């Protein structure tokens, strides 16, 4: 039983791999399923090749030969034929691998999208724009992506500064966002649930905290979310929230952030119109909770050192007022 207990952590790791919210082994869309199929074929074929090679090595080591053959005997007909067979086998396997990758790759780029989303990656957060034929139904949000199940979404990828990489392992492969280029990724989700994506190309100080909260819902929930996002910011009700709104619009906050329906129109930072309806804060660095938001306002450099949001000097009750106002922006 003893070795089994030693292997327990290994099994724990293996199990965790399949169920993770950001795992490419738990595909939830056509694209990631196609890739997962290639992965299964590759992992089993390569494992057999690996065991076969090590087996040959073990046999070679174990097999004792009496006399060593010296110069002039390096040509051994039987071995030469085995060598030729081995090369043919390897070439055959590789051709098979190339074929299945080519087919899977074609499926990744196929599909007719009926939802357009433009994601612009910036240094260390995601600006998400839902596009639509009539401009009135377009809106901007940040760090979250809602997709309807069973509909193909085309995600247009642009970069505002350096090279980032859009990657939601459970839904599809990654695609870089490169300044001067417009790339695209097709996603056709097949299973509801919330998934996590993360920037996969080193992009500077806070590359580690640049996550994206992705939620796949059914059609109705998605449409109600869109209509809620289209509405301008809900006006504050409590006195403290009112004071918070007034403070927000007069101090440094409005210089960087936009809240639709209020005078705040800064375009440097993320759009906060429906901040409270999101599930994470600061591109996945903190959960969207009141005390996390107030800690974030007091010193944004503590959880995400190096990010571009400065610590705006506020008295405690001013800070509370602004937090009340922001928590009201559902």
């Amino acid at each position: 039983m003893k070795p089994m207990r030693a292997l327990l952590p290994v099994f724990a790791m293996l199990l965790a791999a399949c169920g993770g919210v950001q795992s490419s082994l738990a595909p939830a869309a056509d694209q990631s399923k196609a890739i997962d199929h290639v992965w299964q074929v590759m992992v089993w074929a390569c494992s057999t090749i690996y065991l076969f090679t090590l087996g040959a090595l073990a046999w070679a080591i174990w097999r004792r030969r009496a006399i060593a053959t010296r110069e002039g005997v390096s040509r051994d007909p039987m071995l030469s034929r085995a060598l030729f067979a081995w090369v043919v086998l390897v070439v055959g396997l590789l051709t098979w691998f190339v074929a299945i990758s080519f087919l899977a790759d074609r499926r990744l780029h196929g599909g007719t999208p009926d939802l357009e989303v433009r994601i612009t990656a910036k240094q260390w957060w995601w600006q998400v724009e839902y596009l639509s034929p009539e401009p009135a139904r377009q809106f901007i949000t940040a760090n979250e992506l809602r997709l309807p199940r069973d509909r193909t979404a085309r995600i247009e990828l642009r970069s505002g500064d350096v090279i980032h990489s859009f990657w939601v392992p459970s839904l599809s492969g990654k695609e870089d966002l490169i300044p001067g280029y417009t790339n695209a990724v097709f996603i056709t989700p097949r299973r509801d649930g919330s998934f996590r994506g993360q920037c996969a190309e080193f992009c500077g100080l806070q590359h580690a905290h640049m996550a994206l909260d992705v939620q796949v819902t059914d059609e109705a929930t998605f449409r109600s979310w869109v209509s809620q996002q289209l509405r301008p910011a809900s006006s504050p009700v409590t006195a403290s929230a009112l004071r918070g709104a007034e403070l927000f619009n007069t101090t440094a906050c409005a210089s960087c952030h936009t809240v639709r329906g209020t005078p705040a129109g800064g375009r440097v930072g993320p759009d906060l119109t429906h901040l409270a309806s999101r599930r994470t804060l600061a591109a996945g660095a903190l959960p969207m909770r009141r005390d996390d938001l107030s800690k974030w306002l007091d010193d944004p450099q503590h959880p995400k050192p190096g990010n571009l949001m400065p610590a705006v000097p506020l008295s405690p009750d001013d800070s509370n007022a602004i937090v009340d106002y922001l928590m009201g922006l559902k």
Partner: protein
Amino acid sequence: MSARVDLLERSWADRPGFIGWVTTVDHKRVARRYIATALVFFVLAGVLALVMRTQLGMSENRLIGPDQYNQMFSMHGSAMMFLFAVPIMEAVAVYVVPLMVGTRNISFPRLNAFSYWIYLFGGVMIFIAFVLDIGPEAGWTGYVPLSSSDFSPGKRTDFWAQMITFTEVAALCVAVEIVATVMTMRAPGMTLSRIPLFVWSMLVTSFMVIFAMPAVMLASSFLITDRLVGTQFYNAAEGGDPLLWQHLFWFFGHPEVYIIFMPALGMISSIVETFSRRPIFAYTPMVMALVATGFLAFGLWVHHMFATGLPPMGNSFYTAASMMIAVPSGLQIFCWIATIATGRPRFAVPMLFVMGFFALFVLGGLTGVMLASVPLDLQVHDTYFVVAHFHYVLIGGAVFPLMGALYFWFPKMTGRMLGETLGRWQFWLFFIGFNVTFFPMHLLGLMGMPRRVYTYQAGLGWDLPNLVATLGSYLMAISVLVLVFNLWRSVRRGEPAPDDPWGAPDLLWATTSPPPSYNFERMPVVTGRHPLWVNADGDPRIDLPVLDGVRDDRREVLLSTPVDAIPVCRWALPDPSIWPLWSALALTVLFVWSIFDQWGVVWGAIPAAITFTIWFWPKRSDVSLRSDE
């Protein structure tokens, strides 16, 4: 007899003491310090890796901040690739190739000394910059625009780009030397089909260096001028293109990893041949495999850029090319195993490391085949799966054979045997530590952990594999300490080594351990592929055929034609000189000055021109270069 030896001793001797140390052009002394310096950089970069692994041991760890972590992983990658891997492989070749081809020194002795100095100054410069908080911060790949002046201000990336200039000048010099040595200085009779496999692997490696390094030379020069005088190469808004950097960098980058891996193939062939006590099976296919790998390495660099949105059809071509390069490697693995199967293998420490190579490199090679497939690469590119892959093929594929070669050639280099039991301890610690560190990273990559993150959040299932990897990295550190202790103890009190402790076939083992400064008293002649095992008609070798007539009163070698190794002429090699060191210093001043001011290139060129001229200027004290009176 002894009169000739005294004469040779005098004409090939270095000056005594420190002056002798800095002016020597003996390929053995320069190679030994080259290897020692590369090992020091290996240990330093390894310490950086330990700190990184400790930071990643737990989620949301605050051991070091993002800025330090970025500098550390950039420094770890750059030091390992540019300051350890390529230089140490070339240094081993600088030591071994002249002895294996049966000549007295490397082709350009002073250029060889210059190459070491410029490499040393480059390495020291970047580590000083790192200590002064000016270390590289955009990874060892330095992708633009993150590494352009807009997103990495200050002089950090400039020092990194200039460090590349230093190391590529050093690597190119050694590559040209090795090509010249193998092409013109082979012992008479060593035709193309009698060249040892290690020499073949170094020849192909040198040609790869010659054709690959200019790509990174251009890419880093474009980056330096972008950051200093505002050229627009990588500025997408002014006609430039960020992908230009990736194309140029990876056109160099992939051949670079084969430049690191191919010498290891040669080392394995030597070790397997010696310890199986039989010639390598299928010599010609093995040479063809080396040459094929050399060519194919230049045709598959786009597999590093599958996720950048290049046209799918092009990507599929590179999938096929990337998978094709697995065929020569597969062939070589087969031939080694066939050699072991049909020989009488003896498992001394070098052979243990080759067994370690088989276990790890085959796994790394197969994950490489997986990465070559475009759809799969889109899932695992820039994740810890790739980190696991390239450590398996770089540490498993190059460092393991290198350590085996260290145990194999250490007696010849120092005249002392390395401790056998310590060697076994070091092997098993390294093998187990390596697997415990890097195998869980395959899982981390599949579970979505991206590369180059200074921390990660709890609850994603990454905590346990990261902790296991961190513990494994400490095990590897202990094993490196055991190696350092073994080296230190053996140099001082190791058991003295006979001329040929392993019974190997190469000319290298026909000299004493360590060889005299002139290597061979009289120029050897080669009649077969295994000079020390059998003579031309197959019965065991008793005596060594040699040639007279090469002058002993000055540094002279025998040149032969490139293909059939027919003697062409005697050739005098230059004497020891201080000027390679001064030239390297002048060039260092030029390079560092040009980091801060572009006019440094112009004004710095004057002292450099002077020192180079004096280096080539024939001086009265030069005995060798005076022609036959």
